[in-house]
């Protein structure tokens, strides 16, 4: 009885501290809070998220400790970029293991499918590396939080900056699945809105490697000035490499709309210098991010991507909400999440909107020239801050049925 009283008291104090209301007695299903993480751990996106994301979430769980005396458990699995594998694993975790919250790392196709499952189970889902903006637009659900970025934000940030700098005629090389189509569409929208033209696009099957030459040839014969690379991971790396080999980067400017620091690292600054990119976090942005990255580096021996930092922040944010709500009940936690400000090493002004979009300031960055890079992983200079309310889909534009 004393124990129950104590834990309720702690819950109440925690709730009072952040200004949320919590029930008098804390309730946790199965007496444990289970967080699950599905991502690509072995395939093309595994450097952006993968094992690094797993380690980041382990750090989050460890740093947070127990919630009102209840343990936090962490499960993770490789979804192999297969939607059916991801769906089956999520159902198994929800139905048999009593999972309370699911984080989906990479792969937009998987994220769209999992959002439906989380909604059916009435449990929160955080999408991190999966970029498609459909998650909080046409296919929004009340249980989904889209955390780090989305195709709209990177399209507006990077695409907008390039059109503003005079790059008006675009041709797209697009990954042939949910993510690529979203990225191409969202970038095309901003290009057209700013008075630019989209001359054409070509879709590539994922994992084509040596075949990019054929596709890039078509891009070059389009006479467009900007080659929009609506693809990511390994494919993006090989597309940039092939474009350099064929001298396409001399007649066209390459725009990697969504590129992670691991990809810059793999290609080297010679091939990537001057490229614009949009992200919400960079390991070297302030003292707090550097301190966290140092801890991460000790485990992974490389610097974290914004996605891996977002994995850490997403899980921490969820655990804070569980603590504040005094329960792991999906509806109550979502209500708490949507009424609490987020302030940690990832962002200082984050907030989860009604449609599930975590809105915070984004940054337009440019890749440094080799001569300007002073120490290992010193890759970006920040060009400007894009305020959160300008970066993402607005209430006037949304197609999310319950947030109009």
């Amino acid at each position: 009885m004393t124990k129950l009283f104590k834990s309720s008291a702690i819950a109440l104090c925690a709730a009072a501290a952040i200004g949320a209301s919590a029930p008098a007695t804390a309730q946790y299903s199965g007496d444990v809070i289970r967080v699950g993480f599905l991502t690509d751990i072995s395939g093309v996106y595994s450097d952006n998220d993968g094992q690094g994301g797993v380690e980041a979430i382990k750090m989050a769980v460890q740093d947070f400790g127990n919630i009102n005396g209840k343990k936090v458990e962490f499960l993770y699995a490789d979804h192999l970029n297969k939607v059916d594998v991801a769906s089956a694993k999520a159902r198994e975790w929800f139905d048999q293991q009593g999972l309370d919250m699911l984080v989906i790392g990479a792969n937009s196709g998987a994220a769209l499918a999992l959002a439906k499952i989380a909604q059916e189970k009435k449990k929160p889902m955080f999408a991190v590396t999966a970029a498609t903006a459909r998650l909080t637009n046409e296919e929004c659900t009340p249980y989904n939080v889209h955390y780090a970025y989305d195709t709209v934000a990177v399209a507006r940030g990077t695409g907008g900056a390039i059109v503003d700098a005079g790059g008006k005629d675009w041709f797209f090389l697009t990954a042939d699945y949910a993510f690529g189509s979203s990225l191409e569409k969202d970038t095309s929208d901003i290009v057209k809105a700013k008075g630019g033209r989209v001359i054409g696009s070509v879709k590539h099957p994922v994992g084509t490697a040596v075949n990019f030459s054929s596709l890039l040839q078509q891009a070059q014969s389009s006479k467009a000035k900007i080659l929009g690379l609506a693809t990511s991971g390994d494919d993006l790396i090989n597309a940039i490499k092939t474009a350099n080999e064929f001298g396409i980067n001399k007649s066209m400017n390459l725009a990697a709309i969504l590129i992670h620091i691991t990809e810059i690292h793999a290609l080297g600054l010679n091939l990537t210098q001057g490229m614009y990119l949009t992200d919400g976090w960079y390991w070297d942005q302030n003292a707090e991010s550097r301190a966290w990255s140092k801890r991460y580096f000790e485990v992974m021996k490389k610097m974290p991507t914004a996605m891996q930092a977002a994995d850490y922040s997403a899980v921490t944010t969820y655990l804070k909400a569980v603590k504040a709500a005094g329960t792991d009940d999906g509806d109550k936690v979502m209500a708490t999440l949507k009424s609490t400000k987020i302030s940690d090493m990832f962002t200082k002004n984050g907030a989860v909107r009604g449609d599930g979009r975590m809105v915070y300031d984004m940054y337009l960055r440019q890749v440094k020239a080799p001569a300007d890079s002073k120490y290992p992983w010193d890759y970006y200079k920040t060009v400007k801050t894009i305020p959160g309310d300008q970066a993402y889909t607005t209430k006037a534009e949304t197609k999310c049925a319950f947030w109009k």
Partner: protein
Amino acid sequence: MEIFGVPLQSLAAQVFLGLVNGCFYALLSLGLAIIFGLLNVINLSHGALYMLGAFATWAGLNYFGLSYWWMLFLAPFIVGCFGVLIERMMLRRLYKLDHLYGMLLMIGLSHFLEGLFRLFYGVSGKSYSAPIELTGATDIGFMMLPNYRAWVVAVSIVVCFATWFAIEKTRLGATLRASTENPELVDAFGVNVPMLVTLTYGFGAALAAFAGVLAAPMVQVSPLMGANLIVAVFAVVVIGGLSSILGAIITGLALGVLEGLVSAFYPQVSATIVFIVMAIILLMRPSGLFGKESA
């Protein structure tokens, strides 16, 4: 002039670029066909050996300062020796069992090798530049052709046909082929058949590594580079006829060109066309285009 809305000039460029891809198909499927022909092993670790060749090239430059030209010979030699070890220490023990066991061993080995490299280098891999002598591009009328790709086409075709010649037209090749047909009889003539088998596997592995060296400056040197390619290469071998050397070479080149053409008209299918052709060939000529009908 246009064909179905695609200018002839860009069509010619696609055919040529397809030929470059075809060279990789040819080199890799040739190694597979040789290994299958003599050892009856479906070498599913071929993609991993190709990856090893590319990584050896990168490592040669970055750890030992050895240029591309050195590694063009050294990488196939090193990986060939590794192949000899695989045959001696692992494959040899499985010859008495069903073929499936050999295949499973090779799948396991390739996962192991790819996992090992992923652990050390990450999936984004390493960047390798073409040698200075082969950088730049030449205007060949309908396109700017990077000199490196021209080199890849030339050297692959020479290596492919030299291999075909060695196996089909020389005394050593005749002994090899005889060992496939009737190992006991050839053994009775005093030929060391087990040694021949070991060297053949080593040679197949070296061919895969050679393709890896050629690929290193063109694509990112990454642990999964072989896994992405090898499935298509298997389809090429099936289309060409399982153990046919000439079939592997010609089908490899032809399918590369076909892929290039398809990506001019409908790029989404470019990765699938190989399998569509495979399905059609299997229905119409189950032993492949150049394969012998087995009794």
